């Protein structure tokens, strides 16, 4: 650690059963670019039981320092002990930026920490920048520009917290790119004393049931996704048929999930998974910004839609205007004919 650097940029290092969440590693890479602008190091805040070994993974992904809160009471995530310990540390060290993954855990504790420290907090950011802005003749240094779709995704809003010291944001998994780890990177471990009041640990976990996800949208090279235009089980079956022929994963927009056509685990978009496959085929998806936020980084995009004006065509590389019940069978036949 370069001792001349300030300690202004933090990432909550989320771990479950000793495995770090991908989103935390993605955020460390983003934090590096933010920290460079602020002449700061990057610190990760790691809570758990016997988790010191994870520090080297955090260093490899960009942390210069790990605040380690290691205690048997922290083995499993619980809101109050986690939030209160992070709050105490934030109040003591006063970082300017604290980032959390927008997970069941991050979205649970970030608001509590922000509430107690009276920090600005913006949920589900899709982009973050550091800037100095002059607002009403007052210069604000190191402002975190928290950029997110707003109002049902019809606009992009840039949120700032100019009047407070601590700026917090949650970011969904997959939105920031995970760079290559550098295992030669080194850092310091700063142990933090864990003291908890019985009131803080009063909530007990009675039972916990967690499965490895059977769906791996993030890792799929080809994704075939259906939306509102495939609003009957018969039409959606065509989407699934195409996916099977192409060896692709099936996904859906929020409309498809809400209509019960596909499991929410397979939802692509701002409130679902963010994907960057080699090929993304959007069928009957109009392309609301929440959906595009989850797929527009795909290498190639094919859009099939009966509405020639659908915004999805504006991010697509190939646009097919037509009825999916007509187009999909033709596409399957064309693909099969070229394989032989």
């Amino acid at each position, binding site marked *: 650690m370069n001792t001349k650097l300030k300690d202004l940029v933090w990432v909550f290092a989320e771990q479950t059963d000793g495995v770090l969440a991908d989103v935390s590693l993605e955020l460390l890479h983003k934090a590096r670019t933010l920290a460079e602008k602020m002449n700061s190091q990057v610190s990760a805040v790691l809570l758990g039981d016997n988790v010191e070994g994870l520090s080297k993974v955090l260093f490899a992904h960009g942390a210069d320092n790990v605040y380690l809160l290691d205690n048997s009471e922290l083995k499993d995530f619980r809101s109050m002990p986690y939030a209160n310990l992070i709050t105490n540390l934030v109040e003591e060290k006063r970082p300017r930026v604290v980032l959390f993954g927008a997970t069941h855990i991050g979205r649970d504790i970030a608001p*509590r920490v922000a509430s107690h420290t009276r920090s600005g907090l913006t949920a589900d950011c899709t982009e973050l920048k550091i800037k100095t802005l002059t607002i009403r003749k007052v210069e604000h240094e190191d402002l975190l520009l928290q950029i997110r779709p707003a109002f049902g995704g019809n606009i*992009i*809003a840039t949120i700032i917290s100019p009047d407070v010291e601590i700026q917090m944001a949650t970011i969904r998994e997959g939105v920031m790119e995970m760079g290559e780890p550098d295992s030669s990177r080194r850092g310091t471990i700063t142990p933090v004393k864990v003291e908890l009041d019985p009131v803080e640990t009063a909530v007990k*976990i009675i039972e916990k049931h967690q499965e490895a996800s059977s769906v791996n949208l993030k890792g799929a090279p080809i994704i075939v996704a259906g939306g509102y235009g495939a609003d009957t089980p018969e039409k959606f079956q065509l989407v699934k048929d195409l996916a099977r022929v192409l060896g692709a994963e099936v996904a859906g927009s929020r409309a498809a999930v809400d209509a019960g056509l596909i499991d929410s685990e397979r939802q692509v978009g701002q409130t679902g998974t963010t994907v960057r496959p080699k090929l993304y085929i959007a069928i009957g998806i109009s392309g609301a910004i929440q959906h595009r936020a989850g797929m527009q980084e795909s290498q190639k995009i094919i859009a099939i839609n009966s509405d020639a004006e659908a915004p999805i065509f504006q991010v697509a590389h190939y646009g*097919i205007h037509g009825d999916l019940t007509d*187009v999909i069978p033709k596409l399957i*036949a064309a693909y099969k004919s070229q394989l032989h």
Partner: protein
Amino acid sequence: MSLHTIVLVKQVPDTSNISGDVMRPDGTVNRARLPAIFNPEDQEALELALRLKDKHGGKVTALTMGPPNAANMLRECLYMGADRAILVSDRRFAAADTLATSYALHKAVHRIGDYDLIFGGRQAIDGDTAQVGPQTAEKLGIPQITYTLEVQELNLKKKTVRAKRAIKNGYEILESPLPVLLTVTKDAAEPRPFDVRRLCTYKRAQSRFEIEATVDDSHDLVWMDELMEKIKADDLLIETWNIEDIEADVQWCGLAGSPTKVHKVENVILSGAEFKKVPATTEGLNDMITDLMQDHIFG
């Protein structure tokens, strides 16, 4: 001990039904053109609270902060079965972010007094932040159970509640002491339809704003006070609280109390990929597949 549950509810613009004339030419949103609805997850939160009341007795209080017309949603709460409805409304609350909102709500909860449980939707569809629930819990100094799927067991003797909560790829069951705040996810509980008898009664329920609007110059303030008293006596008053009523400090309310500010809003600019229009013919599709195979996207 008699159970008392508070439900945090919000009236939201229906962002799922945005049509052309809602967006202004400059890309901003004309909120006034959107229909206002009962935030769906808050309605499920109310349903969970009412189910506990069905089983254990007690009282359910619906609490909202919002503009005067949020009284419409509070009436719906009464139709479903809420015993008491409170509208926290004051111009000085305007432009509140989640922190300022939770500050006002927690002051209102203090005024309400004793409670065992607080329910709320996980998030509101106009912001999707999921922050107000946890921030209100933090300000009240009570534990929280977010992403609640199901309330399994309420033990009023031990003063504990067990709830099932969604986690990544699974669930966990937590036991918390009371009081606790729970935020409820979609599909936790199908909201009951309005009770017809309650609808007939409570469609006459009025907020202070609505009562004031019926008063004209021919009436004096005494008449107004008497009217309020009568409506209250008939149990038809939607209690309406301002900043002073909840003893909130103005500096933590509204825009002044909101650390996050909107710096700018932009129209969505599409990235404009290299675009090929593909005819929906066998030939056109064949050409596209050839392209993709050459680019090693397929195979």
